């Protein structure tokens, strides 16, 4: 765990407590069963917004709490532990695009509504099933945006889309010319193919030529923070399970082969945590963000992949049942692994940044 300041510690404790009491895995089961239109519980989301989490990276001047990225990561990590269904990652990334690239008017218009949780935003970049920001066909003519975005996270509840077109990022409001076609993935969360057919679009003109890359770095790091919470939880419940389950008259935790596997996972988890916290720190300091983002996402992918596989295996038969929670982590893990850069995508980007 990074060394936190007092405010960050308070925030983390608050998030931990809230997630444990108000949004345990049972809450996700409820969402899965009741299928709210947004893909999450609106009540839970407004509670989060009231705690300032919707505007966690939005400046105070625009109604945000501006706790910074490390704080955002801490909250998202805690929510990841109980696979909470919420648009916090999507809307934070969308907000960051406006913070980085929006005009004063755009900021004034959108950030307060995002910060209050009144509306939800999301980022729409990829046009295929694998992340690749270099392949964008979406075009804008005369303020009208046309293109199709695949697997847009939290699309069902989103009122505002930050859309990557060939010449930059655009803001598109949900409404005319915007059609959603839901895509039910294994994580039972909101995803949709979104078709923009001459939808009114406003360019995010600031933030430089690499605005998209900078927003994607944020998406990678914050997604990695959610994955960190998931990996930590899988590790913790697996360890608890091994300590309690008896087989052949011994608790499983006493079998050396399992001890060594847990020791391996513990080492991997330590590396993942360092990589993710390193990414969050880079965002707050502004130094080395691109590189830190590839490290964070690559490590998150690698370790959560392994952790979710081992977690299921070490739970034995019950880990295969829907009654136990462990399967949710596996089924969400692969969706997040494939989002904003697979492991090999991150490695390519790392190599490019390092000049080889």
């Amino acid at each position, binding site marked *: 765990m990074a060394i936190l300041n007092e405010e960050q510690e308070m925030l983390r404790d608050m998030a931990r407590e809230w997630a444990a009491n108000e949004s345990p895995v049972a809450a996700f089961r409820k969402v899965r069963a009741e299928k709210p239109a947004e893909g999450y519980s609106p009540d839970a989301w407004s509670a989060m917004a009231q705690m300032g989490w919707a505007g966690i990276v939005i400046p105070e001047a625009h109604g945000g709490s501006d706790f910074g990225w490390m704080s955002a990561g801490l909250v998202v990590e805690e929510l990841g532990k109980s696979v909470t269904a919420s648009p916090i990652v999507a809307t934070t990334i969308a907000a960051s695009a406006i913070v980085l690239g929006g005009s004063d008017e755009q900021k004034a218009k959108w950030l307060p509504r995002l910060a209050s949780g009144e509306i939800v935003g999301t980022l729409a970049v990829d046009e295929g099933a694998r992340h690749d920001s270099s392949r964008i066909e979406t075009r804008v003519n005369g303020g009208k945006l046309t293109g199709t975005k695949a697997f847009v996270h939290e699309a069902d509840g989103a009122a505002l889309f930050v859309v990557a077109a060939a010449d930059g990022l655009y803001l598109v409001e949900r409404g005319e010319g915007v059609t959603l*076609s839901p*895509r*039910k*993935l*294994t*994580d039972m969360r909101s995803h949709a193919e979104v078709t923009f057919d001459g939808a009114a679009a406003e360019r995010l003109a600031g933030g430089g030529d690499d605005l998209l890359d900078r927003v994607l770095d944020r998406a990678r790091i914050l997604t990695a923070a959610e994955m960190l919470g998931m990996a930590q939880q899988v590790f913790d419940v697996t360890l608890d399970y091994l300590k309690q389950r008896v087989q052949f008259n011994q608790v499983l935790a006493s079998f050396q*082969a399992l001890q060594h596997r847990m020791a391996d996972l513990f080492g991997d988890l330590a590396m993942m945590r360092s990589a993710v916290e390193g990414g969050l720190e880079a965002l707050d300091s502004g130094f080395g963000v691109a590189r830190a983002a590839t490290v964070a996402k690559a490590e998150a992918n690698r370790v959560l*992949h392994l952790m979710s596989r081992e977690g299921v295996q070490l739970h034995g038969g019950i880990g*295969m*049942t829907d009654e136990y929670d462990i399967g949710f982590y596996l089924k969400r893990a692969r969706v997040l692994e494939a989002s904003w850069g697979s492991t090999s995508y991150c490695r390519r980007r790392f190599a490019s940044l390092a000049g080889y």
Partner: protein
Amino acid sequence: MATLAEPKEASADDAFREEVRAFLAEHFPAELKGSNNALASVEGPTNESPAEKAWREAMGSRGWGVPTWPKEYGGGGLTRKQAHILNEEMAKVGAYNPIGGMGVMMFGPTLLEYGSEEQKREHIPPIARGEIRWCQGYSEPNAGSDLANLQTFAEDKGDHYLVNGQKTWTSGGQWADKCFAIVRTDRSDKHNGISFMLIDMKDPGVEVRPIQMISGMSPFCETFFTDVKVPKENLVGKEGQGWTIGKRLLQHERTNLSGGGSMARLMGSALSDVAKKYLETDDQGVLVDAVMRDRIADFEIRWQAFLLTAKRAMEESKAQGGVSEISSVLKKLGTKLGQERAELLIEIMGLQGLGWEGDGFSDSELSGVRAWLFGKATTIYGGSTEIQNNIIAKRVLGMLDHQ
């Protein structure tokens, strides 16, 4: 080479091949070409079409669904060579073996070895005809892979046993006609107090409750026995021999779970074919993503090595007689590779490979996802990989017990 190959005895085999061809031409319904054997799967009920039924009956009457089983019990009575020819010819016309399931894979071979003459005459022919579906009553809650700890008890009541207890992970329990189970007949002796017996799933006192899995499917059940009467003639072998017979059956299970042929069938098309569909190729058909190409080749090379290992194990066990201890190795390797393949498939397809239901996904994409999740069970059931590792270390490698 100095060594000459043995002269081929072609004539008899050629005649048999002709016989098979004629049979297939007459009996295999063209509409079933390329389809699968639902009964061999544990994942769903059987809803036989008339054509499927006819094909099952045709194969069943010849005994060719269990080609090497003795003819006297309804098997095909074929030599291995002939069985191989049968397979080859079936593959040529896209025919599947309609006779399968646990009766064929595990229970039949075990009963042929340990059953009484009466038991074989009663139980083997319906299996050979594919009329009866068997399930396995081994695991219990809180016992996991620790079979010696089992609690289901069969009380001796003279001409029958009264069975009480609970089994879990009963594959296809909700669709099965009968159950081969290991139960405790003596509480004072952990290993020697276990017996192997056959229970009718239609008997009063048998209740099944499907377990929902992370894949969304419910191929397994919890099975509850409450004062179930099991006639004494349903005891296989002697009382107390259940541990020996039960382990033997597990060897057959492992061999089947990992067996090259059936695994390959389960696997479906080659990874590289899928990759060529989902990923960019150059004008030579070479995958542009060199890293993915490397990983696919890595998998397919190891898969080849695994298939060769399964083949070698079969040859060796043929040469030595009986199921070899290497079944643990095959089970471990085959299930691991199967899981690796499923994970790789998802990576190849990206988010398109993670569809749960609804629009935007093809049937094969959706079933691939379920197979990926269901496949996580393969390294648990039939003796987990950890248990196989213990068996390999201790029995095959002679490493001492860790206690």
